Structures are given as C-alpha cells and as structure tokens.
C-alpha cells in the first residue's frame, strides 16, 4: 500500500524533459542566429544523416555511454553525501595509465589478467582520491580545491611517467605504453545485427557497477549512513555515524569507480595508453550525474543521451555544414537548466507535500486538533 504522490513523481520526470526541450529551443535559436540550417541539423542528429548510419551510431552511443556512465557514477557517489569529487578526471587518467602499464607488462590467463588490470585501476583511482579525502578529514581542505589541484598534478605525473615507461620504444612522437596482450583484453560483442561494429564487453561491468551502486546506496547500512550524512551531517552524527570515516570511505569508493572510467576504451579498443587518450571525461561525468539526478537509472539515461549527441554530431560538419560542437552547447544548456529546474521543483515539492499531507489529514479527520490555544 504505497502511498505515492504522483504529482511529485511527475515533477521529477518533467524537470529533465523541460530542460531538454528548453535546450532544444535555445540551441535552435543559436543556430538561427548563426545562420545555420536548423532543420537539417536536427534531422542529421536524429537519423545519423546517412542511411544505415543509425545502427552504427547506436553502438557507438552505447560504447561511449559506458564510459560516461562509469564516470557519472563515480561522481554521484560523492554527490550523495555532498562531496564534490571534481577529481574523477585525474583519478581515471592515473588509473588507466597504471592499468595499461601493468596490463602490458604481464601475461596471465584471461580472466585473471583482466581482473588484475581492473583491480590495479580501482586501487590507483581510490588511492589518488584518498589524498583528497585525507586532506579534508585531517586538515579541513575543501575537496573541490584539492581535487582540482590533484587533477593537474595527475596530468603532469602521467606525462612524466609515460615518458619514462615508453623510453626507448619507438621514435614516434606519440609515445605509448606497451600494448596489452590478447589475454588482458575484453572482447566486444555484437549489439545490433545490422552493424558490424562491436560493443565493448566492458558494458557488463558498467551495468554491474550500476547495480552495485543501487544496492549499496539503497540497501546497505553503509549506503544509508552515506546518504544520511549527505542529507544532514548533524543528524547523522547524532545517530552514530562517524562522519570523518564516511568522508574517507566515500572518497575512496568514488575514486575506485573513477579508476574504471578509462577501461572500456583501454581494454576494448586502444589496448595501450598514449597522450591521445580521451581527457575531460570526469567533467562530463559531473554533468551527467547532475542530469541523471544521481539515480542509477537516471544516470544511465543521461549518459546515453550525452553519448548519442556526441556520436550523432560527428557528421554534422559534412552533411549540414554545422560545427558539431553545437551539441556541446546543447549539453551545457541542459545541465544548467536542469539544475535550475530541479531546484525549483524541489522547493515546490516541499511545499506541495506539506499541503498534501495536511489536506489528507483534514479529509480523514474533519476537526484537526493541531491548533493549540
């Protein structure tokens, strides 16, 4: 007998939809102002432009979405207790680099080899994030600032170590780590029969991470403590939560998941780390976590949306003579309008539920005794 409040549920869905509609309008206006073809742009984005491009786009969307999803979950873990892990970027870069080095240096039976790579990535990501956690717990340093600094430090560190590791390899100027042997790779699978493109096998890991995130947050004591700390630190402390330990744990967990972010690409496509490895995924993850409102399913939808936009925008330049970065503007507008919409909905929702509760009570009990003399 769940007494759901459908207005609130509807509002929860309406906010992101409205934000998307709003961003479509803003984007269209920008296109018009810039003298770009509005209709062709949207048609190209919706269909993939060429016949038969859509299945390929969809597989690419899933692949890119896998990466985005992991990044957004890493961010969301922090968000659930009001921790801003801006440092996913640095965590995954350091982690994927370490994973590539270790994975390329050993040869093990397949499942073990992959497992080793995954563990290395998670440990490195978690350890890098732990620095920010320790600084916050021990010295009161805001994790926002420390993770921004750690991102830049990680960038320099990776660049330096990469040169050390790759020294004497080849004379090419794009130096790379040794390639991971076959046993350490995660094979792709056919997602759509109409597309020859394979989907990353790591997709299943991402799904597992999503399930784990949902289970941990919603079902376990640890998750309850984490959410309680996010909702009200003072109430959490009074209920017996050790907030300092939770900060550290959440940070490490977030960093461990962040460590996975680069792996779909590493184990499914490149098998090696070089300087052209995608950067900035951590910030995309923040945007997606916000749009998906930290819910495991919402993040998945938002990740797919962002990934689709990124994928489908590729042929825009050729087909519509529109710079594909128009979708970046669209994504930015979605994020800003969605957070504003959520804030307005939240404020409205609080008032609405108070009214609803009062109304339901007075309906069942004609005279309330709430009014003291």
């Amino acid at each position: 007998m769940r007494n759901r409040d459908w207005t609130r549920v509807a509002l929860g869905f309406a906010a992101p939809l409205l934000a998307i509609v709003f961003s479509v309008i803003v984007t269209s206006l920008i296109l018009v102002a810039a003298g770009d073809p509005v209709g062709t742009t949207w048609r190209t984005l919706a269909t993939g432009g060429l016949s038969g491009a859509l299945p390929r786009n969809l597989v690419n969307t899933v692949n890119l979405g896998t990466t985005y999803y992991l990044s957004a979950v890493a961010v969301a873990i922090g968000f659930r207790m009001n921790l801003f892990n801006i440092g996913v970027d640095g965590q995954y870069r350091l982690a994927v680099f370490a994973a590539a080095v270790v994975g390329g240096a050993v040869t093990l039976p397949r499942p073990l080899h992959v497992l080793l790579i995954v563990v290395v990535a998670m440990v490195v990501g978690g350890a890098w994030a732990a620095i920010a956690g320790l600084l916050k717990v021990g010295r009161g340093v805001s994790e926002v600032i420390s993770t921004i600094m750690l991102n830049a430090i990680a960038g320099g560190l990776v660049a330096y170590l990469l040169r050390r590791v790759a020294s004497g390899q080849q004379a090419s100027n794009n130096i790379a780590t040794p390639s991971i042997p076959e046993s350490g790779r995660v094979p792709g699978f056919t997602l759509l029969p109409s597309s020859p493109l394979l989907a990353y096998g790591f997709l299943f890991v991402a799904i597992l991470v999503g399930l784990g995130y949902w289970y941990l947050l919603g079902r376990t004591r640890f998750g309850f403590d984490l959410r309680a700390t996010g909702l009200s630190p003072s109430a959490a402390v009074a209920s017996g939560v050790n907030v300092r330990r939770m900060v550290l744990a959440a940070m490490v967990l977030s960093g461990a998941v962040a460590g996975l972010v680069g792996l779909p690409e590493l184990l499914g496509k490149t098998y090696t780390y070089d300087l052209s490895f995608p950067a900035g995924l951590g910030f995309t993850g923040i945007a997606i976590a916000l749009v998906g409102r930290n819910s495991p399913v919402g993040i998945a939808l938002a990740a797919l949306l962002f990934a689709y936009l990124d994928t489908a925008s590729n042929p825009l330049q050729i087909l519509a003579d529109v710079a594909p970065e128009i979708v970046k503007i669209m994504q930015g507008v979605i994020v800003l309008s969605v957070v504003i919409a959520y804030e307005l909905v939240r404020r409205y929702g609080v008032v609405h539920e108070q009214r609803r509760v009062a109304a339901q009570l007075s309906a069942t009990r004609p005279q309330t005794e709430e009014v003291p003399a």
Partner: protein
Amino acid sequence: MSTSVTAAAGAPTASSPVRGRRGRLGPREWVLAGVTALFLLSFVRLLTGAQDIGSSGTLAASIALAVPIAMAGLGGLWSERSGVVNIGLEGMMIFGTWGAGFAGYQWGPWAGLACGVLFGALGGLLHAVATVTFNVDHIVSGVAINLLAAGTVKYLSGLAFVGKPGGGKTQSPQIDDLPSVTVPGVSDALLSLERQRWFFVSDLAAVVRGLVTSVSVLTLLAVALIVGTYFVLWRTAFGLRLRSCGENPVAAESLGVDVYRYKYIAVVVSGALAGLGGVFLAEVASSAYRDGQTGGRGFIGLAAMIFGNWRPGGLLIGSGLFGYTDALQLRQGGQSVHALLLVLVLILAAITVWRVVRRRPLVGTVISAVVAVLLLGWYLASDEIPGDFTGMTPYVATLLVLSLSSQRLRMPAADGLRYRRGEGG
C-alpha cells in the same frame, strides 16, 4: 593576542591607527621580502651557474605568464569576497580568449580587449543568475559554465574563423599587437649592467630591466587593476558592503545591504577580469585566439588566489611565483628549476634555524630539517628536473599551503554558502 581594548583614557589618536596585524604586509615587509628573494636568487645563480634563474628575459617571461593567472585570480577574489565560489573562471577566461580573437582580428586589438572582457562578463552574469537568483550550487554552476564555454567557442570558431586568412576551426586570424612600453635608455644601460653578472647588482638590474622593457599596456592595466581592487574593496563603502556579503550576508541584510545586488556586481566583475586574462593570452602572450589556449590557467588563478589568502597582495605573489616557475621551463627549464631546489633548501634551512632559535615545537623543526636534507640530496643526485614537475609547481604549492597552514588562511566566512533573502535569523 588580544588587541581588544585601548587605553581607557582613549584619547582619539584617530589619524594614526596601528596597522600591521598578523598576516598583513606593510610596504616595509614587502621590500624586505623582495630584497631577500633577490639575494637568494643571485647567490644561487653564482653557486650553480644557472644564469637564467634571474635574467631579465626570464623575468619578462614571468610577467607575461603571471598576468593571466593574476587576472583569473583577481576575478576569483572579487567573486569569493562576495561569497560566491567561482570555479567557472576557466570558462570565462575561454570566453575572453575567443572574444579577443573575434573582435581583435576584425577591428583591432582594442576592440578585442573590449569584446573579450564583455564575453567574460557575460559568463559571469550567467554564473550570477544561476547561483544568486536560482540558488544553484556554486560548484555545479561553475562546472557547467566551463563545459558550456569550451563547447561554445568551438562552435563559434567554426562560424567566425573558418575560411578567413590564417583562421580555422581552432584558431582566429592574426590580431595586431597592443602597444608596449619601454623606458628608453634605461633599458640598455641596465642590460650592460646585467651582463656583468655581478653578485646582486646584476640581478637587481635584471629585475628592473624586466620591469621597464617592452611592457604591454595590458600588463600595466593588470597592475592598475590589482591596486585598484585593493582600493575599491578595502577602502570604499562599496567594497565594505561587497565583502560583508561574503562574510555574513544575514548581518549585511539586517543593516540594509542589498546582498543580491552586490553579489551580482561581484560575479560579473569576476567574469570580466577572467575575460581580461583571456584577452592577454590571445593578444599579448600570442597574437591570435587558439583552441585550448587557457590551458587550465583559470584554475591556476584560483590556486593563486587561495595561495594569496584571498587578498590582492598575496594573489600577486602567488601568480608571480607560478608565472616564474612557468617561465623557467621555457628558459633552460631543467637546469634552472634544478637550481631552484637549492633556493628551497636554503629557505628551509633558514626556517629550521629560526625555529630552533625561537624554540618552536620540535615536530615542525624536524620536518623542515628533514625535507631540507632530502631536497639537498635530490639536488646533489640529479642534474635537472623534468619539465612535467615544474608544471605541477602551482598545484603542489597550493596543496601544501592549504594543508600545512590552513589555520593561517582565511577565506570569506560565508564563501560558497547558499543565501536566500529573508531566510536568515
């Protein structure tokens, strides 16, 4: 340390208040610190033969690299003094570089300056609308603005620069140079002095020469803005009100201050300053807009501001330091930075001695001594330091300052907190 009560008789000696509270540097301390730093540098230069650590060329490069950092940091200072955390500085700076490129190549560098500043200010306005009016979390809004800016300029470049001579998807056509100032005669005289490589004298000559030779008008503007910021924020009623919004908006509200208005002004100015930093990158540090030109300088600016304890003077030191380490990389980087290790060793040794003499707690003394020895070991065991590490300097320095002396840092008390009119007290 109670400075609470003056003499009971309290004769109004109003015009000569006792300044120089802890953490604030007077002119005398500034000069002293500068001379000491210079002394150290020239000493190490003689010792190691790393000529570039104090050359006027390095200094000129330092200034060029420090200005954009300082402008971003100054933007952060305005915003955070009013209580709004601004990590969207990077994005506003990107807007600035693009605006400079867009207007600069068509209508000249001055138009580029105006347009870049305007674009940055618009970025700031967006941040203000989100954080002040809609109460969106400051960090969230900042991250969104950074993403938005990166995408927007790429899209706009496709429209504005493709097909123009020298322009393309990732860069604007050439922008003409802004004028720069050289004090005639003095510069050459100082050059000959610098070439003598005398202890201290040559270094002093190098510094002065760096300060009087082909200084861009934007650099002069930047210096004026830093001084002006100090004056406006700490010496005017407007500044007092603005700062009170960052310290205790509820109290400010109770005294009739329109908190929203001051926050809006501060954040828009913040964006304009970050935009100016972007203009500097596009027009002075290079001569065209380029994709990715900011290279995270918005964040370094933020770091410089924190390093400088949310004050203009500290910010100046911070950005100067970060610009200097950046500049060294360009000029015999490995060797120069290696020499700097020795500077660090000397400073730490001095701190250790000071602590022993003053009988400070032993733990800190031991730590500084151990670090000094380790650094000395590193210095002796290696010949140069990889450039990657030099690039990290601003970030490591900021983290160290934050974690080692956080009790001496004083950010505005209500910085980053949500505030809604009429909800306090």
